[in-house]
């Protein structure tokens, strides 16, 4: 009984998220670019060095949506972690808006495969974590959090705990928590891989909406070719051993996009070209 009611409520909240289109993005901000030049990174594994990245170069223009595509273990997460500032490269330069990256910061939000919500905080307090940790929690921020929760369709769930939400709702809560910092860059590491296919489609469309609304530079790591074709301005294909970028596909698909695109011939052509890149590497 209870579970059916909860499910119904979730379903309606899901629809609500898609409907409310009121923009709450700030107008006075511009996106910044990201650049990695000649990045190499080795890890020690049982006394042996494994090369995770071999002098890799990747530039992201301000506001660009770039997908990093490749099989597991090809170093795409390592590159993302270097942009995030979680790990330092052995050699090479990483910059954001021309400034060198020295560590993690609120200008770059990172979303992982799981939503990594704080299980002991309510949805609203999860969203307020960033401002509260920096000690600038005020009435304005609280109102902004309410607006963001409304935008991601979770305003009715502000006082729920993460374990009470569905997978898609948890991810939207994580998005709201990241967006309250007004990041200029969003780094996503196979974000929707753990969601079911239908929810994943919703989240992909929703991410595209948010990206156009908030004017962010996005680096999106994935191993799903369709996902990359649907989302990206540019898809960079990576290959393992030695890990490097072996080619890129600049998308000519029109914007704004949503899932209706996947049935068009342009979409299939774009996917085909990426497949050719991947096949060429294999042979």
């Amino acid at each position: 009984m209870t579970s059916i009611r909860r499910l119904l409520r979730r379903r309606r909240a899901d629809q609500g998220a898609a409907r409310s289109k009121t923009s709450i993005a700030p107008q006075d901000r511009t996106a910044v670019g990201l650049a990695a030049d000649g990045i190499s990174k080795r890890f020690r594994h049982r006394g042996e060095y494994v090369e995770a990245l071999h002098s890799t170069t990747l530039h992201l223009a301000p506001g660009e949506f770039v997908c990093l595509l490749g099989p597991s273990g090809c170093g795409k997460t390592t590159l993302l972690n270097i942009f995030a500032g979680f790990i330092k490269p052995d050699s090479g330069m990483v910059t954001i808006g021309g400034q060198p990256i020295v560590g993690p910061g609120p200008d770059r939000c990172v979303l992982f495969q799981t939503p990594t919500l704080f299980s002991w905080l309510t949805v609203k307090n999860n969203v307020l974590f960033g401002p509260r940790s920096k000690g600038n929690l005020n009435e304005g921020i609280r109102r902004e959090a309410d607006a963001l929760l409304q935008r991601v369709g979770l305003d009715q769930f502000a006082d729920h705990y993460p374990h009470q939400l569905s997978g898609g709702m948890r991810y939207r809560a994580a998005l709201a928590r990241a967006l309250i910092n007004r990041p200029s860059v969003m780094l996503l590491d196979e974000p929707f891989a753990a969601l079911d296919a239908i929810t994943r489609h919703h989240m992909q469309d929703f991410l595209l909406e948010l990206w156009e609304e908030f004017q962010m530079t996005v680096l999106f790591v994935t191993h799903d070719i369709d996902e990359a074709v649907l989302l990206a301005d540019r898809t960079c294909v990576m290959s393992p051993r030695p890990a490097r970028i072996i080619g890129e596909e600049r998308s000519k698909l029109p914007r704004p996009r949503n899932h209706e695109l996947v049935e068009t011939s342009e979409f299939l052509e774009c996917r085909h070209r990426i497949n050719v890149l991947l096949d060429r590497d294999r042979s």
Partner: protein
Amino acid sequence: MSQTVTPQRPSLPPMNPPRFGLLVYRGVLSRPALAVYSFLLFIVVWQLISALIVRDPVFLPTPAATLKTLHHYLRTPFPTHGSTLIEDTGISLVRILIGFACGSSVGLILGSLIAGVRVIRAMLEPFIQMIRPLPPIAFIPLLLIWFGLGETPKYILVAFGVVPIVTVATAGALSSVPRDLLNTARCLGATERYIMVHVSVRAAIPGVITGLRLAMGTAWTGIVTVEFLAASSGLGYLIYQAGQNLQTSLVFAGLTCIGLLGLTLDTIFRLSARALDPTSR
């Protein structure tokens, strides 16, 4: 009973009133009710065995006789050491609380150090693992030589059993906080210090409380043993004396006191765990 539905966001469907049968079912089979049933069942089985099969109050007194003795000695001092059941319970409780507080504080500190500082982990961990299998009881002769018959050796013995358990639980809970969770907090702008207090410690609390609950069990073992061997007061001493005098119903009365105290303390831990961890059931 239709509600107005806004075009933007449909309101929640009205709740169906729960069926009467469901209410009864929930009340009769709720968790506290089930706990009471198992307790009652235990009493009934005990009463049946003692009154119908054993029929020897020295070998196995009935629950009724135990309750009578318990009630009698609550206020009346027991002749061997001249204190009432309430006083003995109080004495044991104070010993266990002081010993537990000291032991768990040390355990929390050691566990945090092991989780946080690589050098200390390498130095302390083998040591803790070596101490852990030693039964605290084996140290009673040493403690008596060093500290005599006062209260100090009792605190130390209780603490001695508590420290390794709390240390291992704390270190484990802190080290298993997911790295992605910490990195999430970092890129939301939190300082390392804020993350330590508000993410690491907060995420480790459920595991630490489980460790404290386990350690409380060891603490009771320790205090009862040391009161058997080297004390002239407390519940352990009372049980031992009652056994020597073949006052079996008083033995059971003492055991009941320990059981009730243990249940109370564990309930406190369980409730605090539930208050601090919304995912706990």
